[in-house]
């Protein structure tokens, strides 16, 4: 990838357990409970990553958590994380102001396999804050638009007031070469958009199921539903890529916190081809 080539080898991970220092350059309030950090490294070196990878981000005195990267991988001098405040660390992160210095280890994990989709139709299926880990991939696919067939984005929001990256969705929808379908769970009377689950958006997507690669980022309870709906449209499990979440700590497959069957999610995931992990989905102990 050209953007990665712009980053020297020295920019890549020297010691994966040693955090680099970044300053919060900007905090953007996206929707209630969700905010975006734009980070700049104190050492002014670039930060190469591929869509779908994550970082271990450390707020000094509070804790370190895995966060997927939501920025453009062609902009290695700007690191972007979009965060939902759901726990003690993320709630404290929500209170951090521009200028705060945080530690970043990464990037970790397998990226979305963008090359597998070259020449195919591409469908993205996600909802609420799940759009954040998919955003770098969507942006990269649109950078390389001629390499792909149809591009369809199916996004489900909880309501009309909390549509994440709404400006991006408008921009993508305005392109003549991209279809964007947004559904919401409930809306006020008079709303002209679609109301329903994300499955409703998949059902109306104009894709050639047999020649489509799907990228799904939903909570695990809902991933199987999305995969089933994609299956009804002819997209089989060997062409569906999903991302999973576990409690990641070291990020390099040593501590075992994120073990998922025979794999460690931090280094073998978090992106998996669905047919390769389908059997694990029904194992309740996992």
């Amino acid at each position: 990838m050209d953007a990665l080539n712009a980053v020297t080898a020295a920019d890549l991970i020297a010691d994966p357990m040693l955090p680099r220092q970044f300053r919060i350059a900007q905090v953007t309030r996206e929707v209630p409970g969700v905010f975006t950090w734009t980070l700049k490294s104190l050492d002014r070196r670039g930060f190469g990553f591929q869509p779908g990878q994550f970082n271990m981000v450390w707020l000094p005195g509070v804790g370190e958590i895995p966060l997927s990267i939501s920025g453009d991988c062609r902009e290695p001098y700007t690191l972007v994380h979009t965060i939902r405040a759901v726990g003690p660390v993320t709630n404290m992160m929500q209170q951090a102001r521009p200028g705060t210095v945080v530690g970043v280890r990464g990037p970790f994990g397998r990226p979305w396999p963008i090359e597998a989709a070259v020449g195919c139709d591409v469908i993205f299926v996600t909802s609420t804050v799940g759009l954040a880990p998919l955003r770098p991939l969507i942006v990269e696919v649109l950078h390389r638009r001629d390499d792909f067939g149809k591009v369809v984005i199916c996004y489900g929001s909880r309501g009309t007031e909390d549509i994440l990256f709404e400006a991006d969705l408008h921009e993508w929808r305005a392109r003549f070469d991209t279809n964007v379908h947004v559904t919401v769970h409930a809306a006020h009377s008079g709303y002209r958009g679609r109301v329903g689950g994300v499955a409703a958006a998949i059902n109306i997507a104009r894709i050639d199921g047999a020649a489509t690669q799907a990228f799904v980022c939903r909570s695990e309870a809902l991933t199987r539903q999305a995969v089933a709906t994609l299956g009804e449209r002819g997209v089989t499990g060997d062409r569906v890529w999903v991302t999973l979440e576990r409690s990641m700590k070291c990020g390099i497959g040593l501590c075992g916190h994120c073990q998922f069957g025979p794999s460690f999610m931090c280094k073998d995931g978090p992106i998996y081809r669905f047919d390769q992990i389908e059997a694990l989905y029904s194992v309740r102990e996992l």
Partner: protein
Amino acid sequence: MVQVVGLEATLAAHPFAHDLDAGVLELIVGCCSNAVYKPGAYIFREAEAAQKFYLIRHGLVSLEIHVPQTAPIVVETLEEGEIFGWSWLVPPYRWSNDARAAEQVRLIEIDAACLRGKMEADRALGYEIYKRFVPIMGKRLATTRLRLVELAMEPAPPPPKHR
């Protein structure tokens, strides 16, 4: 010159009538009419008698629930190729929600009393209709349950007050 297309062809083109036997199609057509609703118009309202059911030919239909002290909430939208309104099949034949045109909507309306009468007289027709309705009802129920899971995992914020 304008070509006039009969209701039989229009009905046959709808997914609900896919592979329907010609004789059955003819029986149903006898109970059908075309309808157009402007954006915002009510197609039916909760608790009214369910005297029809509907096949969507074009446009987006909102299913709404009235909530006292606030604006109605849209809980689902349906579009071209789908059907709505199964209260005509189940006593006491009253609508359980409102249906409204979210944009200009073209429908095939099917007179419920007319079709129920034909189904009583011709059980094969009744079986054919049930064979088409029950899978749709089953799928909608399954979808609703999955949406309950979605909402439990990703709760919706309260909709805005009266607009």
